[in-house]
């Protein structure tokens, strides 16, 4: 890695990101990056691949607009989180090993999901801790992997990505993004710079929406009761769009919003940032 880094003239990785679980640097201390030609491999996540390809497309649009060279390693499916969260660790290990191979040569891995990024960044190294060779590779992948908003703010050093949106926007902070990756203000900084967007804070933004993957079908009533609070708070904002950084949470919240005919529309952060000028709300 070191040799390759020296070759290209891009800023070295900011100090403090070396360890997957270490908190991110205060933004003020980050080198004010230019727009170097970076190469990012997109891990689109299985949910986006199958249900929300427009989110993946938006990620590509935003990254390319910022001069990032985007590739999409073929053969990618799921990071293994569903198995891992259900206790099937050996199954998850098989997925992890596949991913280590798939993204072996990627400079950066960018993914539009806080929880899938957590899987790669935080849980792979834990999962593979008893196989030293694999763990080393997992640590390496972990250092190269970034959640979408993290990548924009910390690697590209940008908060204004040239997006525009005409309407009011509120934001739900996904649990893994918040507590495993400690990404707290990055998405808000990005939203703030979206031209025309008026931000309305969401009460209880840091509270879980009740999704939790399999939890939502194992305990549908509990999950729905938790979701109820979230919906009430969203409704109170009266926002045109609910933005989040995780398609899982969005699918969950949107499922109930559409069931009730609420007019707030769910938007992945990438979708919001992909909009330029006169697209309307």
């Amino acid at each position, binding site marked *: 890695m070191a040799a390759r880094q020296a070759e290209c003239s891009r800023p070295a990785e900011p100090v403090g990101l070396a360890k997957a679980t270490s908190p991110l640097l205060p933004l003020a201390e980050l080198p004010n990056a230019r727009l170097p030609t970076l190469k990012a491999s997109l891990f689109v996540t299985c949910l986006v691949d199958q249900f929300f390809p427009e989110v993946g497309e938006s990620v590509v649009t935003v990254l390319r607009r*910022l001069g990032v060279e985007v590739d*999409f390693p073929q053969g990618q499916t799921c990071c293994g989180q569903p198995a891992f969260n259900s206790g099937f660790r050996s199954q998850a290990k*098989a997925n992890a090993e596949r991913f280590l191979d798939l993204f072996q040569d990627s400079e950066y891995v960018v993914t539009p999901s806080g929880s899938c990024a957590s899987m790669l960044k935080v849980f792979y190294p834990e999962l593979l801790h008893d196989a030293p060779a694999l763990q080393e590779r997992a640590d390496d992948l972990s250092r190269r992997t970034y959640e979408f908003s993290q990548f924009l703010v910390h690697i590209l050093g940008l908060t204004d990505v040239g997006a525009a949106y005409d309407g009011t926007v509120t934001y739900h902070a996904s649990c893994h993004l918040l507590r495993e990756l400690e990404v707290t203000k990055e998405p808000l900084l990005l939203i703030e710079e979206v031209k025309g967007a008026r931000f309305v804070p969401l009460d209880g933004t840091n509270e879980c929406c009740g*999704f939790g993957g399999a939890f*939502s*079908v194992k305990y549908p*009533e*509990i999950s729905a009761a938790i979701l109820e609070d979230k919906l009430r708070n969203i409704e109170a904002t009266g926002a045109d769009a609910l933005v989040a950084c995780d398609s899982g949470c969005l699918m969950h919240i949107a499922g109930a919003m559409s069931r009730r005919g609420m007019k707030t529309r769910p938007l992945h952060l990438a979708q919001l940032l992909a909009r330029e000028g006169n697209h309307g709300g």
Partner: protein
Amino acid sequence: MEVKTQRFRRASAQALADDSLQSAMGRAIGHFDQARQAAIEELTPELWERYRQRGQEIKSHTIENLDYYLGLLAWRVEGNGGTVHFATDTREATDIVLDLARTRGVKSVVKSKSMLSEEMDLNSALESQDIEPVETDLGEYIIQLAGETPFHIIAPAMHKSKEEVSELFFDKLRTPRLTEIEEMAAAARQALRQKFLDADMGVTGVNFAVAETGTIVIVTNEGNGRMCTSLPRIHVALMGMEKVVPALEDMAVMLRLLPRAATGQRITSYVTFVSGPRRRSDEDGPDEFHLVIMDNNRSKLLADPELREALNCIRCGACLNTCPVYQKVGGHAYGYVYPGPIGAVITPVMVGLPKAKDLPFASSLCGACREVCPIKINIPRMLLKLRGDLAEGGRGQRKVSWWERALVRAWAITVRSERSLAWTRGIASLLQRPFVSGGRMRRIPFPPFSRWTRNRDFPGLAPRSFHQQWEKELKDRPSPTPPPSVRKRE
């Protein structure tokens, strides 16, 4: 306590359907959670973090050297004139207390809050020997009168509304129908006063036990703990073996963490330090002091490096208050003494994993518990570890249903390669056809999806997967020139 963890599903559904419970619980839990946050703000979050860090160090160090510190504690307590009893399980601990009561002619016992006595079901054991146990913590007293078990580890009667308590007192204490909380507290105090004076034995819990000095520390807000330790002639303190801390100095950290995390107080109204029975120069205090130190499967937690951290818990209840699941289903649904996130970790180990198999899964893994825990205990990791044991553990641990196994198996085959994923996608898009309208499904009649669509719509598969879209057009789409607002920054 009778184990009802097997009923989690049914009990949680009942709790969700109980409107009066939901509103009483919502109010009380919100209050605790806000008080905690305010207390941390006041201390400053930076300082709070440092105390948490130190708290974690103290507890981890102690648990790593538990045998040493328990030995030291026992030695010091005996040196102070007390007696130490070690109990392997609840039955041994109960026998120790009953034996003390029998040999010393005890007729009535006053108790201050002790979760350990709930584990032991001590009240029924005492009653079976015609000894009257009286709970003296107001919350415990209320649930004793109601014949219930604690709903929360620090606020046992949290689920009871003022009206319910009034009705209960009218019924059991023959008071008039009281309307004010102060009146009810006064009524309870009056009923309890004589009990304190008559009691032969006081039984208390232990929040911390200082090894260095052989001192037990009890934090309360009602002063009842102090009455239990000083008025009766015998004081029996019950502690789980993880409650020990090395030195008196450590209390400076723990006493900053516990009240703030628990109730949002800087300090509780009473903090009682007891180092043995009455000395000759003391004016009051018990003639005898007994410390019962109980294991009850805590050593199983200790033996497992992935679960050991659970012994760091100081039972503040903060993780319960912040847990979205606990907030909805409440304490009784968990079916054992310790509910909420930490309960979902320790209960399965205490009562046996298969019996409590639903608990580790009753979490969205949101991590709020870990964020608020004053000892920074990583509860989600331990839930994952227990799920691992249930899915892939040895004999007697595996307890995941066959259809769930089958689902995971099918999923594994699907995501093994891009090709198999595309193939499954093909089948699924045929299967979904009758149910999709406007890009979403309002009802899917087969599980697990049917459980989703009970309350939420499920999206239909996108007409084209991202894989297909990438191949068809995205791959070769020319990169746009950055808009001016972005270029400006170069």
